[in-house]
């Protein structure tokens, strides 16, 4: 074990910085590929996106920084996800995704120090309405 801190200055510096917007066009083929991958045959998903579709609206800029930030912890897992639906996301929508790191928490886990990284994502449609608010917790250990 090194003395390198689990919560580095680099990670601290990302707290509450807004990333994005990243733009995703909800094309028919994009939705079809997603619903086939989750193996959900509901015909409603030809036009409207299924509940976990926001997982594919990835805030890549934030995640790239989070996952590549220097820390002695090398292993990563997804800890928890939370979605709130305000407007349906449909084929033809253009979704702007903004994201931020809201909290960092270090705990002693079974396998040594564990770092919880709490993030929030907002998906806004082309009319300016917030369609989905999401929260996700990533775990490094």
């Amino acid at each position, binding site marked *: 074990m090194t003395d390198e801190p689990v919560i580095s200055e680099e990670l601290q510096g990302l707290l509450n910085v807004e990333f994005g917007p990243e733009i995703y066009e909800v094309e028919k083929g994009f939705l079809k*590929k*997603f619903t*086939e*991958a*989750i*193996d*959900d045959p*509901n015909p*409603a998903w030809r036009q409207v996106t*299924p*509940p*976990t579709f926001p*997982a*594919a609206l*990835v805030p*890549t800029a934030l995640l790239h920084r989070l996952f590549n930030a220097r820390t002695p912890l090398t*292993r*990563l*897992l*997804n*800890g*928890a*996800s*939370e*979605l*709130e*639906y305000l407007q349906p996301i449909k084929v033809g929508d253009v979704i702007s995704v903004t994201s931020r790191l809201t909290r960092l928490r270090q705990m002693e886990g079974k*396998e040594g120090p564990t770092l919880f990284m709490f993030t929030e994502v907002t998906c806004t449609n082309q009319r300016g309405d917030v369609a989905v608010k999401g929260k996700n917790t990533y775990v490094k250990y």
Partner: protein
Amino acid sequence: MAEQVYYEDIEAGSEIPALVKYPTTMQLVKYAGASGDYYQIHYDKDFAVANGLPGVIVHGWLTLSFLGQMLTDWLGEGGALLKLSGSYRGMNKVHEDIICNGKVTKKYVEEGKNCARVEIWAENPQGDKTVTGAAVVTLPSRG
């Protein structure tokens, strides 16, 4: 398709019809491509084992998608999902059943809408809860 469920039909304790899924490595590769989550623990067994995992593991988001399917199948065309959450507490391996379950914990009217809170969870064949979460839904009324 099952018959539409109505607000009057449910009460605290009502169970949602279970859904059983059986993810394969191929499905995880498809999910990686569709979602953009190419983390190797989900398709590269050597990488997964080197990371201390028992083998390739199912994306938490994919298991939550199965729980989402269970809910939307139950809600039918007349119901809607307002909130969905899941904590990834354990790991689901490929080529094993994932059993999705749900139970109504509370029904209430809010802002004129017929709402219910639902506890949801996914189990592996050993009966361990690998994902636990909650949903808030609205249901149509017979009235």
